[in-house]
């Protein structure tokens, strides 16, 4: 490379003076996109865990005798207590049932003498298919209904995947725009320094020397711009994280993986700067004899 004495006069060229600003803006957007996808994944995992593990069992005519002896409710509770992967069994008390029914039946729900089923909630780790659990409970007490959060968990997973796909698309676009910005700045620099490059080329400089000098400068500027953009994005992220904290179970703070992604951003920007400049300069040089 020819950068020891800045033989090409790159430092004096003004063509790339906006490059760090433009790359910084791209970096800012990239940080938001990365943080968005990480946060979405974290929130989805949190929601999926809560939803998928929720198990609700309704036992109709709970006081009727079961085939194996005892009441139907007792038979179901006995089965659930022994079943693998089920914990935190809780039979809703009458006041809790009334609270559940109140939105639909009003304050007099308890006085209507409706045949209200017994409701049991539990935490289920998802061992085995939900249909097998429902069949087993129906065998213990026919007519028993089982509801799990699996369907909601699948929807949350689909939503998360779509958010992550959007974020990935944004990252691709940001990278493409950053490459275009570097390419335009490089071409402007080449046009500005055309005579100098022709002289140096005529004196025997290799394409790799000239491209290397341009690429080194673009790499440093892109890395600096990306680092600045990421630094500016941090307080914005902290503010957004505080807004999202109630949806994440009240846990404030940025996604842990972001602290690995942030330092990588200047490296990625540097790689984009280096690669784009190398290609742009080498293609341009081929137009010289």
């Amino acid at each position, binding site marked *: 490379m020819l950068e020891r004495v800045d033989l090409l006069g790159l430092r004096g060229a003004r063509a790339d003076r906006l490059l760090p600003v433009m790359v910084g803006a791209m970096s800012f957007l990239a940080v938001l996109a990365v943080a968005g996808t990480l946060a979405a994944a974290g929130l989805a995992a949190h929601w999926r865990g809560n939803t998928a593990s929720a198990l609700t069992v309704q036992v109709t005519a709970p006081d009727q005798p079961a085939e194996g002896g005892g009441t139907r409710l007792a038979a179901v509770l006995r089965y659930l207590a022994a079943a693998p992967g089920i914990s935190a069994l809780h039979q809703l008390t009458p006041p809790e049932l009334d609270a559940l029914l109140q939105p639909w039946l009003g304050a007099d729900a308890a006085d209507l003498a409706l045949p209200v089923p017994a409701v049991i909630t539990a935490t289920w780790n998802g061992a085995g298919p939900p249909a097998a659990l429902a069949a087993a409970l129906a065998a213990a007490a026919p007519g028993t209904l089982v509801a799990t959060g699996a369907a909601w968990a699948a929807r949350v997973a689909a939503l998360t995947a779509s958010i992550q796909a959007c974020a990935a698309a944004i990252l691709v676009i940001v990278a493409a725009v950053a490459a275009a910005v570097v390419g335009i700045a490089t071409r402007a620099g080449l046009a500005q320094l055309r005579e100098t490059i022709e002289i*140096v080329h005529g004196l025997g400089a290799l394409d790799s020397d000239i491209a290397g000098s341009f690429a080194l400068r673009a790499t440093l500027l892109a890395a600096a711009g990306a680092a600045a953009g990421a630094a500016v994005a941090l307080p914005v992220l902290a503010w957004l994280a505080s807004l999202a904290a109630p949806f994440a179970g009240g846990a404030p703070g940025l996604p842990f993986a972001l602290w690995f992604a942030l330092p990588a951003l200047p490296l990625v920007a540097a790689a984009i700067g280096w690669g784009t400049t190398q290609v742009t300069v080498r293609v341009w040089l081929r137009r010289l004899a």
Partner: protein
Amino acid sequence: MVRFEDVWLNYRRPGATSPADAPDVLRGLSFEIPDGGFRWLTGPSGAGKTSVLKLMVMAEHPRQGRIDLLGTDVAAVNRREAALLRRRIGVVYQDFRLLGHLSVYDNVALPMRIARKSEPQIRADVIELLRWVSLFDKQAVRPAELSGGEQQRVAIARAVIGRPKLLLADEPTGNLDDGQAERLMLLILALNRLGTTVVVATHNMSLASRYPAPLLQMADGRLTEDA
């Protein structure tokens, strides 16, 4: 050795689809200069002297014909080999072609830096040459602050610092006074005696007559005399 075999050249106009769209500026040039030879390249303005020099530094490629430079067929070399071949060729351009953002010292050192020579070696050679062209005291000055003659001397120092095997000069004494021109010609002749092949383009026949050497006389893109 430098050899041209039936060389034709034209400058393709921007957007032209065929070389035939532009007129030929060199037409069927054939000549040979042996290693260590000296040739005056003469002829009126527009005869094609500068075009011949451009072909010799591979700044242009012929439309037709074959050129061998220092024993290498220039059509057969890749870009890296062409660059390495250029390092063995020194050129003094009519318009100097100095880099305005570099000092006199750095301009002269440019070919050695491109060739990745060590800084101590560069310093020794550059200082020696700057003393020889009487510009030692102006080594830190930018070319824009120099007179035309001084710029010419910087360009000459830059051309010869790499001890080229082929030295090309386009009107090298055009901006020099008689004394400086005399010293330049003595340097060129000294390099020639050391084995450097030299081609000097000039329309100054009195200069050519003071230093007798074979002529490549051109007119209208053709060689009218190959002595």
